[in-house]
């Protein structure tokens, strides 16, 4: 644990040093927690933290010609230090983001408590804004990095037959950037919190009195850096580290999904960072990006922001597509239907994702001639997405379906994400979007896509790979109950939101017309039940990780490479080097093999 304590010390020390230095340079007169002091302090603190946790031992010493130093043994403490094993990083991500999801979930419960009544009974409108903003950014973070960080890191090297990621140290760095982000976001209330939502639209994000917005900006920029480095690592790993015989056409579909999502995160994340830098500069340096008086404007923000944030929804759902298709093909005992078309669909989604952003802005006042092309392009995305659905259904068709907890999650993903997808067309269509914009219809739509699409993939994948990661089996009965609970509960909570949305309930505000109160009471009650269901999930996993029955190496009798090694896998993944000889999903074809393991001749090309 020593590196962790050192990192905390250096982080706090760095913050104080940076803040005081900025304070002195600014004339040593204002408060010590002024905007510039906080900004410089955060940057210095972040550097201190990274150097303390392992940056110095892994890179800093090398820069000065000293040999790198590894701290600590490979016992349980490896999860609490800078560890370059991709499996450790994957577990760190998984545990951290399930915890973040818990905090975001508590925020959601607080919001539903307030919304159970039409007026402001439980919290003020301002407090509601802050709780809503915190819920938004935490859950967006879970959706963006939850699957890619955990299963992406844990499984991609295993699935392609590699010993580790291409850049193991960078991989550890991308995880250890996350704790300072969490600290920044969760300590923002000390400086007056942030209340402009996760979208941080100016002018509110520039003018709001709370300096918590500064911590939001810096934290999310650091999170973006982590996501860029993670994506870069996955792209490079998949390109250069595949085992002999693992051609692009033989990659498991989850690897393709992670690869596609990484393409988006590497390129587009910079735009969110850039917009937040602009807000930060407007707040601390007096620039005029979003100051209409001086000639700036908020339309600039919306364009740049959505240029990242629309592609970002595909960073959230593409990995879940991959997880769900993996689960569906293994538990249908059939080859994945239309593998090549699915890969093509993933890449088409990546391509289209960058040219649809302005469908978020039909009511923003941008030029009218933008409307029709962005409507058409957005609706075109339903074609590749439809291909993914057809592949899922075609794989199950006449398969020998084995309804385990992950399979229930994956079929629930098909159903729920489809509702999210179909209601998306109402927003892509200009005429209906003008009516529905900023109502609960939108809230219901994106919760169906993000919970139904991304989070259900995360939950399903957690069950599916739990025996591989922990070496123990979860409780199947409780798992099935939870999977059904989420699949059905999602509909009970969010279907009525379409109705209240159409009837004029605005999103993002604590009050609504009194005649919608009965439905909202129902939604709140259902939301509490859905939230409580997650205790079942946490309890099941915690108990099973310690006391669950030992799992065999391949409890699902699945064919991909991660199941060919022990549970949990050994340090360098493959005691025998794999050579890939066939497609990954040859279920039901006599004599077909995905890979053979041998000691001789195998090198990476």
């Amino acid at each position: 644990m020593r590196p962790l304590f050192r990192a905390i010390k250096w982080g706090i020390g760095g913050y104080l040093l940076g803040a005081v230095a900025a304070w002195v340079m600014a004339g040593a007169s204002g408060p010590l927690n002024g905007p510039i002091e906080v900004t410089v302090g955060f940057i210095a603190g972040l550097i201190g933290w990274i150097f303390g946790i392992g940056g110095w031992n892994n890179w800093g010493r090398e820069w000065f010609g000293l040999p790198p130093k590894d701290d600590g043994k490979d016992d349980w403490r490896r999860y609490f230090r800078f560890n370059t094993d991709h499996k450790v990083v994957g577990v760190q991500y998984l545990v951290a983001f399930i915890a973040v999801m818990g905090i975001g979930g508590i925020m959601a419960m607080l919001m539903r408590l307030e919304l159970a009544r039409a007026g402001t009974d439980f919290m003020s409108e301002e407090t509601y804004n802050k709780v809503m903003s915190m819920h938004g950014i935490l859950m967006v973070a879970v959706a963006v990095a939850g699957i890619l960080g955990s299963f992406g890191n844990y499984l991609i090297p295993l699935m392609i037959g590699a010993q580790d990621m291409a850049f193991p140290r960078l991989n550890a760095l991308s995880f250890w950037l996350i704790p300072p982000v969490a600290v920044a976001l969760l300590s923002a209330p000390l400086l007056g919190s942030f209340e402009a939502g996760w979208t941080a639209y100016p002018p509110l994000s520039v003018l709001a009195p709370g300096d918590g917005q500064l911590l939001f900006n810096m934290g999310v920029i650091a999170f973006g850096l982590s996501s860029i480095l993670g994506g870069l690592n996955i792209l490079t790993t998949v390109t250069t580290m595949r085992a002999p015989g693992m051609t692009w056409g033989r990659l498991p579909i989850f690897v393709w999904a992670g690869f596609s999502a990484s393409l988006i995160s590497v390129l587009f994340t910079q735009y969110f960072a850039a917009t937040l830098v602009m807000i930060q500069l407007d707040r601390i340096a007096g620039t005029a990006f979003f100051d209409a008086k001086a000639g700036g404007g908020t339309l600039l923000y919306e364009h740049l922001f959505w240029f990242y944030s629309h592609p970002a929804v595909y960073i959230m759902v593409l990995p879940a597509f991959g997880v769900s298709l993996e689960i569906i093909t293994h538990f249908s005992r059939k080859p994945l239907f239309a593998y090549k078309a699915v890969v093509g669909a993933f890449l088409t989604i990546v391509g289209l994702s960058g040219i649809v952003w302005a469908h978020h802005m039909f009511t923003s006042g941008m030029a009218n001639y933008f409307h029709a092309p962005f409507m058409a392009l957005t609706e075109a995305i339903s074609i590749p997405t439809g291909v993914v659905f057809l592949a899922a259904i075609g794989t199950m068709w006449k398969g020998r379906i084995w309804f385990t907890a992950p399979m229930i999650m994956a079929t629930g993903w098909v159903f729920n994400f489809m509702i999210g997808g179909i209601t998306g067309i109402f927003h892509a269509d200009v005429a209906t979007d003008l009516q529905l914009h900023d109502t609960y219809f939108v809230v219901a739509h994106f919760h169906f896509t993000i919970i139904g699409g991304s989070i259900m993939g995360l939950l399903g994948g957690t069950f599916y790979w739990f025996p591989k990661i922990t070496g123990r089996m979860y409780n199947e009965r409780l798992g099935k109950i939870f999977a059904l609970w989420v699949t059905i509960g999602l509909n009970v909570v969010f279907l009525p939101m379409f109705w209240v949305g159409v009837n004029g309930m605005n999103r993002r505000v604590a009050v609504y017309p009194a005649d919608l109160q009965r439905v909202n009471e129902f939604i709140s009650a259902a939301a509490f039940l859905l939230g409580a269901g997650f205790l079942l999930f946490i309890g099941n996993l915690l108990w099973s990780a310690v006391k669950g029955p030992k799992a065999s190496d391949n409890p699902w009798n699945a064919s991909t490479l991660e199941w060919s090694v022990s549970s949990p896998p050994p340090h360098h993944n493959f005691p025998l080097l794999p050579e890939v000889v066939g497609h990954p999903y040859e279920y039901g074809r006599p004599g077909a093999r995905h890979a053979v393991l041998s000691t001789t001749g195998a090198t990476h090309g």
Partner: protein
Amino acid sequence: MAAVTLEAAHSRAELLHQPRSNKLGLWIFMASETFLFSALISARFITSGVQKPEDLNQALAFGLTCVLLVSSISAYLAEAFIATGHRRAFLAATRVTIVFGLIFIGGVMFEWREALHNFPPGTIYGTAFFSLIGLHAFHVLTGVLGLAVVLNLGALGHFGPSNSWPVEGVVKYWHFVDLMWVIIYPALYLF
């Protein structure tokens, strides 16, 4: 016996793929950085079009552009020298490149002193000017630090013809930062 063969195979695999990975990783990183620069460059055109103030220091900016372009040549020479085993020439070329980089940063600081009076950040051109040049100067600074690290390691004898990747990587990054300036310079001074 099997374990020994395996270890050997592992390290052989490492040797084979690591240079490819490093190169690809750097190119992906530069592609990503291009998006960051493009965001701020498009912000310049969206907010202020091609308007620019009269009192821009054109002579200084032109001079700094030349300094940066020439530094790319010396950086290239540093890379070529170490790849062919001319260690002393490599060290000299790297030093020259660092000096050019520092001249550029010094020039920017000098220019900013004037600019803060003529078109402060609160004006719409000043917004684009300070954010874009600030972002770029930060990248120049990281490039100088990278060059300083390879200079130090090179002086300690770490690099040679078969082991020149860190130099190559830093120099490629330096070229990239130069290339960004070639786009920023006309966007702010010439249009």
